[in-house]
């Protein structure tokens, strides 16, 4: 029952982010570094249509 209550409390319909101080940044985490590298490699191969560059 407590699990159900916990799940219900965790869901919103129009909530905004809760801003907390000092949440650990993962900017230098290997997972995210690799994700950025992969995304850069992918985007370097494509050309956006001119009308989308504006």
């Amino acid at each position, binding site marked *: 029952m407590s*699990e159900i209550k916990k799940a219900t409390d965790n869901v*919103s319909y129009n909530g905004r982010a809760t801003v*907390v101080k000092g949440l650990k940044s*993962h*900017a230098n985490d290997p997972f995210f570094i690799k*994700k950025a590298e992969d*995304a850069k490699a992918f985007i370097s191969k494509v050309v956006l249509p001119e009308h989308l560059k504006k």
Partner: protein
Amino acid sequence: MNLPHYNYKTTDFQEYEFYSVGPKGVIKKIVRFQKIQEEPVIYNLAFGDQDEITGDINDAVTSNNEDRDIVLATVSRTVIEFCDHYGDHFILAKGSTPVRTRLYQMGINKLIAEIRSDFDVYGFTGELLHKFETNVNYDAFLVKRKNRIFDHK
């Protein structure tokens, strides 16, 4: 976009965390927006599960927590909040594998009406970019928030 979503928190509006709750337990999710290009500015949306014990993040495991729609709605909310704070730039989303990209697409298909109310949605097939259609399999997705009309009354 008033779909059920998990409560999520942030410090800098560039990175967000929330908890998926389901049959597989409580799984911590991290969403991070990474600038990958200038002119035009494109951010990558990176997203993974964090092991609470090791701290390792990965997206190789399918959680099977039976809450995919709530998770995707939560990620959509973070996109909106990110744009509120960093501007309406292009945001790239690509799964780590074709299977995962397909899972993302299934989620997008389900939410497409809601997503299109706020965003222009495109899909890549190979190097080509197209307007998103639900019956096409894409390699990656690009979204950009539509121009907003502000009411200054």
